[in-house]
């Protein structure tokens, strides 16, 4: 099998998982463990994910576990990436192992490739930006990659719910616009005694608006500009001044709704080791990131809440008048450190106190 990048790079490797080809945007994560969570993260929908850590699959894949019909050890029901690039894998050993990585990929019909020098790919993406690429069976399939064009909104349609899902049963309810939500977000909300009404952006939310005390705009794959063309209710909903929390894509959509500027980053942040600074609490925390776009200019009425310590990217905003908080990073982590967990406390507190 071959890994091909649109700049012409071609590397031969060994096929694992499903016996098929895959085409998509090639991105990398520098997370060193938590591959189960990464692979099931809907934000990666349609992407070919390169793991920079050389051994993946070490502890196998566990059985799915649910609490309140939310997965507690996966970020969604299925593998979301279209292809996997790794350096090394084995059978996996752990008391709770159900599958090996390769078995799981087969089961989920996702191809993977084992290549010698994943670092080479990372350096190319670092220097040239995100590229299209493919896991190909023969070199001549290169054209498939070159001609590949993906529609962003289709990705979201694939990962957002087909019907309304209710998690938990509680006095305080929040409406979650699911663009491909990570189960970790739902988990954190439920843990704080919030009932989660999870709907897709296409569904009618009007009937819930009087029931709920808060709104969450979830993470999700792809270009926020395109998504915002299909979903333009944010500004309207903000008039309720209901506690609102935007995470990742949700943060970007809020930015666009209020005329902020969102730009594609050269190669994005995809890691679980990034320092951000909480301007309000004057505190630095380590956070999980998975974004290829970022807000470049704060929208009107919003204050800076978090910024990335290394490259000063806006990582969170706050609008006290409208009761909106946002984070570009993932406070639910999964995989990643739990430092930002307190943001869910802040949100839950806002929800409980509202009205």
């Amino acid at each position, binding site marked *: 099998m071959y890994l091909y990048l649109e700049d012409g790079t071609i590397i031969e490797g060994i096929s694992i998982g499903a016996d098929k080809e895959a085409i998509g945007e090639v991105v990398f994560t520098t997370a060193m463990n938590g591959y*189960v969570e990464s692979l099931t993260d809907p934000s990666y929908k349609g992407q070919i994910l390169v793991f920079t850590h*050389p051994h993946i699959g070490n502890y196998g894949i566990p059985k799915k576990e649910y609490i309140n019909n939310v997965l507690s*050890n996966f970020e969604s029901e299925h593998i979301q990436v279209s292809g996997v690039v790794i350096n090394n894998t*084995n059978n996996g050993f*752990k*008391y709770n192992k159900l599958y090996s990585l390769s078995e799981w990929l087969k089961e989920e019909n996702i191809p993977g490739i084992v290549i010698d*020098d994943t*670092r080479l790919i990372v350096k190319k993406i670092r220097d040239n930006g995100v590229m299209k690429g493919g896991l190909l069976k023969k070199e001549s399939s290169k054209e498939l990659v070159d001609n590949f064009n993906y529609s962003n909104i289709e990705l979201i349609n694939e990962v957002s719910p087909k019907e309304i899902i209710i998690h938990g049963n509680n006095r305080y309810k929040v409406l979650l616009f699911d663009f491909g939500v990570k189960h970790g977000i739902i988990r954190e909300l439920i843990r704080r005694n919030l009932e989660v009404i999870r709907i897709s952006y296409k569904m009618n939310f009007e009937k819930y608006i009087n029931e709920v005390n808060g709104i969450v705009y979830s993470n999700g794959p792809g270009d926020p500009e395109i998504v915002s063309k299909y979903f333009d209710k944010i500004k309207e909903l903000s008039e309720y001044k209901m506690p609102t929390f935007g995470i990742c894509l949700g943060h970007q959509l809020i930015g666009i709704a209020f005329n902020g500027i969102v730009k594609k980053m050269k190669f994005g942040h995809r890691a679980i*080791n990034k320092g951000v600074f909480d301007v309000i609490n004057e*505190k630095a925390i380590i956070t999980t990131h998975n974004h290829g776009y970022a807000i470049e200019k704060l929208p009107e009425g919003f204050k800076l809440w978090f910024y990335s310590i290394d490259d000063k990217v806006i990582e969170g905003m706050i609008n006290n008048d409208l009761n909106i908080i946002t984070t570009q990073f993932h406070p639910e982590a999964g995989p990643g450190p739990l430092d930002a967990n307190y943001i869910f406390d802040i949100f839950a507190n806002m929800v409980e106190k509202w009205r």
Partner: protein
Amino acid sequence: MEIKKVLVLGSGPIKIAEAAEFDYSANQALKALREEGIESIILSSNVATIQTDRSIADNVYLLPLDYRFAERVIEKEMPNGIMIGFGGQTALNVGIDLYDKGILEKFNVEVLGTSIEGIRNALSRFKFKELMKKYNIPIPPSAVAKDEKEAIEKAKEVGLPVIIRVSFNLGGRGSFIARTYDDIEKNVKRAFAQSKTKEILIEKYLEHWKELEYEIVRDKDGNAASIACLENLDPMGTHTGDSVVVTPAQTLDNQEYQEMRQAAIKVAEAINLVGECNVQFALDPNSKQFYVIETNPRMSRSSALASKATGYPLAYISAKLALGKRLYEIINDVSKKTYAFFEPSLDYIVMKFPIWNFEKFGVKGYLSSEMKSIGEVMSIGRSIKEAFEKGQKMIRAYIPKENSIKALKENRPYWYHYAINAYKKGYSLKEIANIIGVDEFFLSEIVKKEKKNNFAIKQIDTLAGEWPASVNYLYTTKYGLEDDISFEKKRKLLILGAGGFRIGTSVEFDYSTVLLAKAAKKYFDEVSIINHNPETVSTDWNEVDKLYLEVIDLETIEKLNKKESFDYIATFTSGQIGNDLAIKLENKGMKLLGTRGINIERAENRETFSKALESLNIKQPPFVTARNKEEIDKFINEYGFPLIIRPSHILSGLGMFIINNREELKRYLKKAAFFSRGYPVVISKYIENADEAEIDGIGDGNNSIGVTIKHIEEAGVHSGDSTMYTPIEKEISDKMKEIALKIVNEFEIKGPYNLQFIIKDKEPYVIELNLRTSRSFPFSSKSINTNLMEYAMKGIFSKFEFDGFFEPEHKLYLVKSPQFSWLQIKNAYPYLSPEMKSTGESGAFGKEMHEALLKSWLGVQPNRLPKNKILIYGKNNLLKEVYEILKNKFYILSLDELYINGDSLSKKEVLSEINNGNVDLIITDGYLKNIDYRIRRRAIDLNIPIVLNARLGLELSKAINKYGDSIFNI
């Protein structure tokens, strides 16, 4: 208060569990201080380290780590800050003493970094336990005991098996696993003896649980990050210093990893850490249950390893944090663009392997909760197998042949060797894992076959390639398809490091390596080091233009040379590794820096060396290079016993013995076969009761600069185990220098050399020439306050400004005393011989020899001045003189079987006096194992100072008699 001047405490001599990691740590702290424009002072007795070189700190005090000496330094220097977290447990203990005795308050010295209260909370097993409960952090079932009786009671509460842990100790000293109450009774006295606070913890033994360590940094505002998670392959119960370690952690899922990370940060918060700590965890391999075991609120062996593994310089950052900086204000040292507030991501695997030296002590080693390894190596690969294979090449260890399963069951060192053998014999990975408690994942990787043939050079960048690195911290991999760096044509030098420490190869070589790298910068455009010891300063990527963290062997160097085209390769600071490689590299067409390989070979080979001496009319003891029994017999008929026997090509006296009769000879020849590597044995006449002397010199092909040294112990005690002093009597040193000059010319010595002599009736006989830096090289350099390495570069590339032999003037006497680690080498019999056994050294200056000697001796653990009773016994008549000197001030005991003078006690009475803590010092001599094994061993286990040589006993008693307590006031 603005900090203007800071005293940094070092860790003293190298001993098991306190090695070069503290040279590196304090070195980093001193660098951080200098950067901040703060005046720095270092106090340490380790004469061999880089930190005690005058170029690193603004002022150096080569004195024992004792609060009394520290007080003198504070009084004189008046610093307003002190750093006690960079010198291991030794420095922490001195810091706590200074605080408790009110000395810091008296002189208005602020403790920088974690407060004394925080340190106490971390190190007192009792306080730590209470604190963890308060913070809701899970700890294993345990209880604290203050005496032997309570220990049994508490063990009953906790339930067997238990592990006994000691408060304020070092390297797990005194700790043990008890499966029966009898085990406790037998070992608990020794445990209490190792605790500064006479406090032990009885903890449930979590057999075969995983052991993990997180390295946490935290600033004064409470911002914290986890820099590395080190996973021990060995389970709980084997000291982490004796464990094979991998980083990043490989077998933890996200939940386990993050929950422990969060708990580790909470521990740091609980002790109000400012700087760095490591937090140790036990994790059940069959559930998500974990416990916090302990924390070390200071730089440690694991923090040095974590720094080298990740490229995140923990000690340097920690020093900055202690000075009040915040994590997000400090620049990432490797990227130079990002900040220190992040958690490194690794796109490679790092493994650490310990090195043990039990074969030097004639005992079998068993791993336990007490650290026993002498050194370690670190390997980097793009797979576990690759890192593992490199590690195997690096350790260069002697692994005894054993029945694999038996060895695994007994927890013998180098378990992986036996595990692989067992696997080859048909045992399943699961069966092996069940015996040793190593995760099957690792076993499955190390038995894998890996066929890769690439050779690519990769950079360590702390961020898995996400940002470009600005320093050349490099490793090579078979998994690489491209190099991370490009190679320019310029004048290049590659310096070989000395690798992992073992007895005979220690920080002394690192000192030379680093000083050479500095001195060479003037002569080369690019200086690179290749080395793999994670503890050392030489593996600090900022010391050189390029650091290759790699195997030091012919294959690797050849491949590197193909890409780099080095102009010169320096082998002379690399100990035995360099000596072995020199001629091979030269034969492959590489150019050696300094003396030619062919001349190194001539000096190393006893036969050619002796012929050269003969032709120069230089005296040497009678000798023969024997290839068979007949040649040996012929020699014995002519010269008789005793004789010294050894294989050629040696370091640290490996396989070297004094043979007194035919019986011993027979035994030796049987045993020595495995040491010999195809060379014949060399037999020379052992000249009894002679002095031993040395020259550490630098040649320019014709002339030499150098230092003449003498040993206090007679010839026959290995030079590494001897007490050395300089300057020496002019009459003898002049003769030695004359000989040295002849040899410099004969062997065209350019650069460092070490020449060893026996002095009998004031006549020097040459016994050995080493064309490399010696163990005493830093001692010699410091004795004349001269950077001899700069002379080495000059000698290699031009000529000295003087003719003949030049020994710069000594302003003071300098004495070096050996540090032994007998305590950890369980069951070993403490004695001195031609085979080196010490692990480190202490040094001190004095206006006269005895002053320097006493200070130097006090710099060695557990030495202290006697107060009341001294035990003197043995066969050597000098001991009678020792008695005469000490009898007026001390109460002298002697053993009836080896009576010298004073109270005659039976062996039983002697042991009881020792057990009751009544003996302050023991002075004896020679090898008396059949009589006094239990006496020496018991003294060692209870931290009682013991002098093993009568000549040393004599000089020391003179010093004690002359100075006594007044030594602390000089």
